[in-house]
């Protein structure tokens, strides 16, 4: 059992990180912490992908003349992780931009308070 855990440590880590990220994203009212949760979630998927492409004792897949290596690691997951990072950076940037805008308008980072103030504003407007 313990051996299995050690063998699968990357995947177990990825699942743990994903759960922590997901819980933070949905349960925490603070917007900045939500963003951190989102990033944790993305990172866990990257860990999962990178661990999948890794081969024990393998080298980066660059062919050099005259050297013989036993194994190369799989480059495709690496490419996927790079693309994923670009996507994660852009969603984070958008999320941060929206947070700035909300903070300037409602002077709070707590989503519950923001929702309350937005509702009050709507009622005032309706009168």
């Amino acid at each position, binding site marked *: 059992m313990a051996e299995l855990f050690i063998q699968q440590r990357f995947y177990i880590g990825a699942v743990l990180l*994903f759960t922590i990220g*997901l819980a933070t*994203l*949905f349960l925490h009212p603070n*917007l900045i912490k*939500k963003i951190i949760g*989102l990033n944790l*979630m*993305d990172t866990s*998927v990257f860990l*999962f*992908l990178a661990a*999948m492409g890794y081969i024990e004792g393998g080298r980066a897949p660059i062919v050099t003349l005259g050297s013989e290596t036993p194994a190369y690691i799989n480059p*495709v*997951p690496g490419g*996927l992780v790079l*693309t*994923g990072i670009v*996507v994660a950076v*852009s*969603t984070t940037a*958008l*999320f941060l931009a*929206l*947070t700035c*805008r*909300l903070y300037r*308008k*409602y002077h709070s980072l707590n*989503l519950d308070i*923001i*929702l309350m103030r*937005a509702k009050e*504003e*709507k009622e005032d407007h309706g009168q």
Partner: protein
Amino acid sequence: MNFIQNIPFFSLFLILLSAIASPFLSQKNGALRLAQGVQLAVTLLSGWLLTELWQTGTSFTYQMGHFPAPWGNELKAGPLEALFAASFSLVMLLSFTGGTRDIQRDIRPERQGMFCLLMQLLYAALLAMVYTNDLFTAYVFIEIAAITACVAVVAKESGKSVVAAIRYLVFSCLGSGLVLLGISILYCVTGHLLMEDLGEIIAQLVSGGTYMVPLTAAALLMTLGLSIKSAQFPFHAWLPDAHASATTSASAILSGLVLKGYIVLLIKLIVRVFGDSMLISIYMDDLLFLLGLTGMLFASVAALRQEDVKRMVAYSSSAQISYIFLALGLGSRAGTAAACFQILAHAFTKPMIFVGAGALIRAGRGGHYWSDLRGAAWRDPMAGLAFTVGGLSLCGLPLLAGFSSKYGLAVAALAAEWQTMPALFGIAASSVLNATYYIPAILAIWGKRAEREQLLHHTVQDYQIAIVCFLVCNVILGMGVGPLFEVIYQGLELL
């Protein structure tokens, strides 16, 4: 034939090019006109592609950069993809034309170029999801669609829309995270990302009975992720605010097209990658069926309680999406075909309702509530007609698109096993619910005519042309059921 094969890539390239160019057009409305021109061109090209592929009964794969299969990236087009591309482009064009005046009112003039950039990127992402044959490309475009759709919600720059966008973004990120995890697991098991290769290996694994747990997990994660993004019932919390607080064109496109893009991808996954028998063996079809059935009823009940016209229409979108899931859950070819038809029917009906509602809100002094809209249709009869016909179509009035899709769904349900009675009950109950909120709404907008109420315009406006086109398309979808189902069946064979 050879030139035809370039159309999918050429359309995407053209749209992306116009997206990059639009912020630099300083002329008044220049960016809007460019976007509309490109949308028209792509509609015509896709229509041409559709007729050619339908007549020859073929499909083809297009290798990006001529790299062969295991390394390269592929697009695949058959009659069904061409049909979706042509209809999505037409709806895009009509929603853009129909909402031009609201864009000019809601969005600052110096930002219009940026708004067109976003909409064109969103459009490119939708077409890419329709055409791509590669799972990872699909993921990238899912994310592009999510980001651009969020910004399209914020484009109106009110506090409410920013809050709605944040909520939308959180759900979108969760959805795409789940999809990415599913794709990773599939790649881990099979070592492929192209859909056909994946399909072959999965068929081998399923017949051997190995790796069933990871395959089930991947199928579940991807279905869950895509249903969160398409606002299927228990995951629809983000939808009403996001769709109601955007500007008219954005609401129409988000409701009519963006939700469908993910479902087209889901259909491709079901047909091309997993295969019906594998999904039935893990009870995925029953899950989709139950999600659809509950969604049809609950979302309609939620729509009943809305005071705000745009929120009601948004909830009704969630109910209509549930029809598609119900049809997919039947697990038969007829069910999938009914789902495709419902995608088209809703894509042409909902934007028409949004364009009509936008014009009515304008005519009713800018209020979103029923009390503001009483009698608004007399001031703008064309918008009133659009709202009325759209509402009746969703209630299932014969000769309109909604009726044909319900008919297709009922026919598919009759051939199913235990699903027949629940499905027929669901269709009947949700049609009645649709009628209970659309008919009072229609009566309200055509309500008592106030004294000295004047028609707003005496000249033909461009949104009125869009509404006429929507009406014509709706009637065509309602009456041309036979040929359309023929194309869809042929397309599903070749998918």
